[in-house]
């Protein structure tokens, strides 16, 4: 139980996927201009991460113990096709849900946070439950970072910022300051 709490807190705050591992930077910098979009993208990412955790657990337990060298290729192929399959399923079953987050799914599948989760979970030898908790923590952490950056960016639209610094340079510097703030969470778990 302790272990699960640690995995969750660690992936959510202490070792936040975006701010400490730099995973999923493309959407983090690219799509974070509106709070609303960021939040929806975050939810879709949590969903894909959960699927990834299931897929990678299945592959690790039943396939890769016999053929460890196929790890990378099988992760990519299986995760991409599962997400595509679920995307079609959502489109059929609930067009409203598809409109809300379906458009993000192809974008997320090619995101390094997804593959990163599968690889980290494998390297650390996580089981099914641990993998799911890890995916939840990482996904919520990603959403948190996205929403924070988007909030700051929406605010900055209203301020008078020199033209020179606008754009990616400013977003990176904001991300750096956020990352510094998140460093304050280190030791949160082991201090008690």
């Amino acid at each position, binding site marked *: 139980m302790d272990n699960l709490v640690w995995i969750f807190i660690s992936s959510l705050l202490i070792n936040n996927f975006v701010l400490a591992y730099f995973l999923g930077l493309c959407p983090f910098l690219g799509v974070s201009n509106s709070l609303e979009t960021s939040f929806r993208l975050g939810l879709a990412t949590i969903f894909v991460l959960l699927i990834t955790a299931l897929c990678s657990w299945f592959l690790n337990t039943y396939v890769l113990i016999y053929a460890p*060298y*196929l790890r990378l290729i099988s992760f990519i192929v299986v995760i991409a096709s599962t997400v595509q399959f679920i995307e079609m399923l959502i489109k059929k079953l609930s067009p409203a849900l598809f409109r809300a987050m379906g458009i993000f799914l192809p974008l997320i599948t090619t995101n390094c946070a997804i593959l990163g989760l599968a690889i980290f979970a494998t390297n650390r030898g996580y089981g099914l439950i641990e993998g799911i908790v890890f995916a939840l923590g990482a996904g919520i952490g990603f959403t948190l970072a996205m929403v924070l950056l988007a909030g700051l960016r929406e605010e900055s639209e209203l301020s008078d910022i020199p033209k020179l610094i606008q754009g990616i340079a400013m977003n990176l510097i904001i991300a750096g300051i956020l990352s510094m703030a998140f460093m304050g969470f*280190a*030791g949160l778990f*082991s201090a008690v």
Partner: protein
Amino acid sequence: MSEDKTPDAPAVSSTRLVLTLALAGLISGVAIIGIYEATLPTITINKARELREAVFKVVPGVTRMQKLVYKNGELVSTTETEKDEEPIYGGYDDEGGFIGYAIPGAGPGFQDVIGLLYGYKPDQKLVIGMEILESRETPGLGDKIYKDAEFVANFKELSVEPEIVTVKKGQKSEPNEVDIITGASISSKAVVRIINETHTVWSTRLPQPGSEPLMTESEKTVDEAK
């Protein structure tokens, strides 16, 4: 390629699509298995050497080692690798006499999981060495748990009875006390906690001092071959 500009790709039968991908997959599979087979011996030797070096470091005086697992209520030597196993390592001298165990432990540190290996002498109930195998502690502060020789020296002769406790730097007086590192107290406490927790698990599993598993012959020859 002219078709790049037209929105409709030329019609290709789906058999051909599947065949292309299958062929690509086949070639890639052959390439991957080839490199895997080619590098596996080196990788295995590297890993084994790294482990030997760490074990030899935490249990001074050891010249031979073997892998031990706790199975059906007793500690037995093994050469096989199983899923979810928790191996420890027995260290022996040239004549096969038992010196001490090297026990791996892991747990949350300041930033991320700290993985370590400690040497343990069961007859004296002493920790006789500690090596950090894996950590992402803050450079310059938390990484002193392996860079600070004074801190590491705490674990050269450390009693685990009743348990290891941390004290302020310079106040170590009892055999079971460890001086914490100024500015990295969380990391140093984490190391102590990991050893305490691992010890609690293993203290009931280890056999009575004097009846440790013997160095097996087969392992000896494997050892010398390396």
